[in-house]
């Protein structure tokens, strides 16, 4: 594999020129003839009974084409647990509950119409603290479940319980133990492009749905079910993506606004677009939820981990989306980060009247890693062992099978930790307690797909046109991470073409084969594997054509030369050099015999073969086309939450140096090193881009970002008050790529979409402790928290 021509090269992003020059068609630019604009009216209370809704004035506003409430559409339940309806009729359970919607000829008129809708509410007691909501006498957020059976508690019927070994026994046998309570905040995914969609029915009620989803087939299935439930049976649905401005978890589930858009399109018989404002993006799009952890760990006198016990409480908000399933990924670091034989984990998701939650980059991993890595530093200190050494002693090894059943294949965690130690000058800077400090944290994440659905597969279809362009039809999506470039490199390598020959079509259910979605850092690995396999098939087909046509072409050419020049002496050619596909290779568009790569007569540009192959006369011939549906050999989690759900796992470590102002409590990051096991970097500069971006989101998670909820209402729904880092807050990030090609990866690659975010916040917290001796266990680490903790310590 050392002889790669395109993989491993820093090829500039292919699809991005249109984005930076304003040509790309994002949701805003996607326009249809006669398109209307939809707007949604949200609840004014966190919990209330709707006494009446009057839409008359809104309907009479010139330019308004439809006003709908829960009484105008079928009362159909949607969502993961079917615990909500599209428009709410009787009860609202959160501030973002959708009460009515308008379609009008301009967004401004639609907005104006919302103000004319009169809703009378009767406020009900609401509950915002999951601990309070868990109490037996707490008011119920839902009186019944989706089937109408009475509920007795706000605790979701999702028993996230995991046990391996004997934690109790291990605790008794431990030389040292440490217990910590840690909290992580609500945060918003902050996509640059806000949410939106366009729904359009044809005269037979077939639906064309332009959506930002990164799970196009999952979205299609959910919409199909919804249409069926509202009485539209057997309708064709095509889901397409526009250019998408980031996903970070927000495009996994089908959101309520998408169903509303479909209803407005159905009602008006016109294409309808809904586009969120930034305020809506903060208030009405599910964020990453807050989580509280209690973690206890122990080790023996040599520092080997003996057990880990974790309990988590997750604020689910009022309804259930993928937020409630994040424990399936929290499992990952809790059961398998470092070698730990005895593990117990329990997560409780609780309904409250806060806004409901969903996925974000890293899923449950960043939250759980904050708990695990905070505890690791605490336990190392208790045991009197250097925190880096402690991690090294307990590190994972290739060939390990973890308590959860994860099969570790390649694992260069040791190199990651060593690189971080060296670059951050660990030995020189650690333990000074002089206001400057260094800290570290590690990570494990799925890097070979993640079997969360029955299939974790991706289909790729490759066709080669007569002049030698390579069209790739992918069932997956691109949300700006650079997939078109990476897949082009892989296809070019596998087929023998050049990356610039490759044209990729993403995000269209009518063209692509099935795909489980661009999530869980799985795209490069799973789609890449499918692309390699399909590419090799294509190459084989071309070489078969070459065996057939190169001799003919050479002979014809020699004949012509002879004709032109009677003195021409025909060379003695050894045609056995090219008499079978195995004897030929195709690289960089050139076909040549392996035994004589520079053969003056046999070396042939691929385009010539393709043209000859297609233009052979009447009857059936061969077009060069291949397709592969590839599903990684993995397992779904069983009832005990065990199973090897990814084909391979990525490791990494982050090191941070901070300076803390003891008088103001401000934390300044002087250096951040993020070292990642990527298997093989298909495109190193894109890999670094993923690491930088994720590290910045990690720094925001660690220091500044939080959605502030006051009695269920988001009070900082804008970028002035939601403190995402700006360009001026640039911190020096050094991304270190550790390459240890994975046998299962495409050219050895592992996924790298999420890992960079995971260890950043705990590394910062650990560095703050090293600087000032105060451990902040509640993210984000604001100046207020640092100063309060320092004052408490000084008494």
């Amino acid at each position, binding site marked *: 594999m050392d002889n790669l021509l395109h993989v491993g090269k820093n090829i500039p992003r292919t699809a991005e020129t249109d984005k930076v020059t304003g040509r790309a068609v994002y949701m805003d630019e996607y326009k249809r003839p006669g398109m209307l604009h939809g707007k949604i009216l949200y609840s004014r209370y966190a919990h209330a009974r709707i006494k009446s809704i009057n839409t008359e004035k809104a309907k009479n506003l010139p330019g308004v084409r439809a006003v709908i409430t829960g009484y105008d559409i079928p009362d159909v339940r949607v969502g993961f647990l079917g615990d909500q309806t599209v428009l709410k009729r009787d009860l609202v359970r959160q501030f973002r509950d959708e009460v009515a919607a308008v379609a009008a000829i301009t967004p*401004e008129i639609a907005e104006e119409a919302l103000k004319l809708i009169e809703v009378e509410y009767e406020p009900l007691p609401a509950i915002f603290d999951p601990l309070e909501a868990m109490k037996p006498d707490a008011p119920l957020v839902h009186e019944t479940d989706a089937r109408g059976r009475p509920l007795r508690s706000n605790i979701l019927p999702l028993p996230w319980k995991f046990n391996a070994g004997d934690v109790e026994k291990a605790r008794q046998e431990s030389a040292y133990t440490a217990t910590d309570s840690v909290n992580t905040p609500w945060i918003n995914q902050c996509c640059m492009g806000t949410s939106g969609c366009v729904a359009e029915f044809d005269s037979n009620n077939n639906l064309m749905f332009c959506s930002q989803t990164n799970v196009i087939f999952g979205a299609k299935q959910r919409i199909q079910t919804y249409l069926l439930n509202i009485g539209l049976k057997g309708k064709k649905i095509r889901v397409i993506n526009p250019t998408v401005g980031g996903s970070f978890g927000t495009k996994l589930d089908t959101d309520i606004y998408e169903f509303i858009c479909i209803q407005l399109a159905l009602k008006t018989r016109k294409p309808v677009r809904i586009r969120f404002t930034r305020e809506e993006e903060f208030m009405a799009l599910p964020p990453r939820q807050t989580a509280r952890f209690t973690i206890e760990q122990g080790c023996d006198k040599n520092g080997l981990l003996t057990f880990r016990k974790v309990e988590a409480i997750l604020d689910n908000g009022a309804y259930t989306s993928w937020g409630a399933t994040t424990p399936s990924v929290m499992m990952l670091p809790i059961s398998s980060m470092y070698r730990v034989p005895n593990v117990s984990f329990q997560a409780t998701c609780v309904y409250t009247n806060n806004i409901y939650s969903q996925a974000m980059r890293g899923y449950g991993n960043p939250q759980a890693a904050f708990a695990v890595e905070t505890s690791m530093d605490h336990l190392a200190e208790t045991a009197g062992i250097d925190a880096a050494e402690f991690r090294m002693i307990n590190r994972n090894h290739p060939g390990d099978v973890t308590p959860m059943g994860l099969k570790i294949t390649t694992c260069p965690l040791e190199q990651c930790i060593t690189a971080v130690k060296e670059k951050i000058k660990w030995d020189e800077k650690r333990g000074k307690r002089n206001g400057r400090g260094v800290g570290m944290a590690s990570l494990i994440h799925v890097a070979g797909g993640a079997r969360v659905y029955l299939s974790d597969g991706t289909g790729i279809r490759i066709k080669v046109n007569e002049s030698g362009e390579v069209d790739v039809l992918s069932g997956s999506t691109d949300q700006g991470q650079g997939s078109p470039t990476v897949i082009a490199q892989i296809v070019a390598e596998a087929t023998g073409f050049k990356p610039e020959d490759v044209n990729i079509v993403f995000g269209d259910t009518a063209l692509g084969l099935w795909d489980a979605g661009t999530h869980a850092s799985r795209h490069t690995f799973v789609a890449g594997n499918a692309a390699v396999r399909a590419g090799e098939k294509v190459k084989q087909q071309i070489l078969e054509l070459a065996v057939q046509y190169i001799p003919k072409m050479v002979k014809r050419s020699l004949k012509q030369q002879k004709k032109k020049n009677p003195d021409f002496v025909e060379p003695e050619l050894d045609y056995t050099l090219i008499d079978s596909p195995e004897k030929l290779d195709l690289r960089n568009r050139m076909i040549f015999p392996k035994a004589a790569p520079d053969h003056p007569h046999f070396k042939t540009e691929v385009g010539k073969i393709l043209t000859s192959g297609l233009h052979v006369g009447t009857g059936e011939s061969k077009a060069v086309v291949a397709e592969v549906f590839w599903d990684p050999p993995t397992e779904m989690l069983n009832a005990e939450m065990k199973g090897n759900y990814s084909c391979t796992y990525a490791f990494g470590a982050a090191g941070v140096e901070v300076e803390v102002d003891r008088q*103001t409590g401000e934390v300044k990051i002087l250096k951040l090193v993020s070292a990642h096991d990527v298997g093989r970097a298909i495109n190193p500069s894109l890999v670094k881009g993923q690491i930088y971006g994720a590290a910045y989101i990690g720094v925001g998670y660690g220091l*500044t970002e939080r959605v502030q909820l006051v009695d269920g209402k988001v009070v900082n729904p804008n970028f002035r008050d939601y*403190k995402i*880092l*700006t360009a*001026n807050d640039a911190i020096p990030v050094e991304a270190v790529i550790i390459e240890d090609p994975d046998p299962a990866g495409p050219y050895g690659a592992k996924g790298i979409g999420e890992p960079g975010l995971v260890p950043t916040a705990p590394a910062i917290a650990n560095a703050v402790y090293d600087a000032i001796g105060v451990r902040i266990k509640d993210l984000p680490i604001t100046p207020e928290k640092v*100063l309060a903790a320092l004052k408490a310590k000084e008494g």
Partner: protein
Amino acid sequence: MSNYEYHKPQTVKEAIGLMESLENAKYIAGGTDVIVLVKQEKLAPANLVSLRNISELVYIDTKDGLKLGAGVTHSAIANNEFIRKRYSALADAAGAVGSKQIRNVATMGGNICNAAPSADTACPLLVLDAKIVIDGKAGKREVPIDDFFLGPNKVALNAGELVTGFVLPDLGSNTGSAYIKHARRQAMDLPIIGIAARAAIKIDGNEAVCRDSFVAGNDISQTIKRLEDERLVFEDVRIAMGVVAPRPVRAKKAEEAIKGKIISEKLLKEIGEIAASESQPRDSIRGEAWYRREMVKVLTGRAILRSIGRIVGPEQMTNPNRLW
């Protein structure tokens, strides 16, 4: 968002005339506050009278102190060498507002008329004894800035009047000033608190030797020790605080208490305590009251010290990020 007529007068006189004749009209300069308020539907003007094309509002006059036109942008102030050296607090604040894009259009007059408790340039103008120049149908008048702020978003402007400029007195070469914006990030942020200080010190005999200490960027206590050793005395001090009251306020008791005293670490700490006692911060989503009060204690001393640094080493000290 409501619809409005946009008017583009070329002179102040024309602007005042328009304001008088139009219904429900509002002045707009850079628009970085007005447009936000219109979008939030907190303002619904039928007419906007733009001050952008009025060239007589754009001047920086450095004869006998400093005279500034209300239409001068924050960028123009932050990048002006004279202001950076002689009225450093104002340059500090102008350079810390919003982002570069906002500073390129947002004007000084607009920032002051919006009168947010957090307005960055308000504290420097308070410590620099600025006067506001106002024009209207009743004619021109000048108001000391301390009398100009009446409360949150409330200023001493009569109907139709506009701010045309600022007059700042010459402060002498033994004076330095500084503004510290304490925020959660480096751009697009409002201060948790803002502190401006202006200090005039008495330097007996020749040039202060302690400048080396500032220039070397020594440890803060060492630097103060040098000041104390040289018995440097505060001749006059101004302190102003933002976000700790309904409007930007002076810490007048602290100013009185520091006058005539020898600079020392203990004194700076005391002054911080007094200033904190004069503040009335509250809890908000942007910061907690106790923390704001603590920061008044810490940052008052730092702002004064940064001001002194600019006197004893004016050439080296023009960069606001140089000290602590």
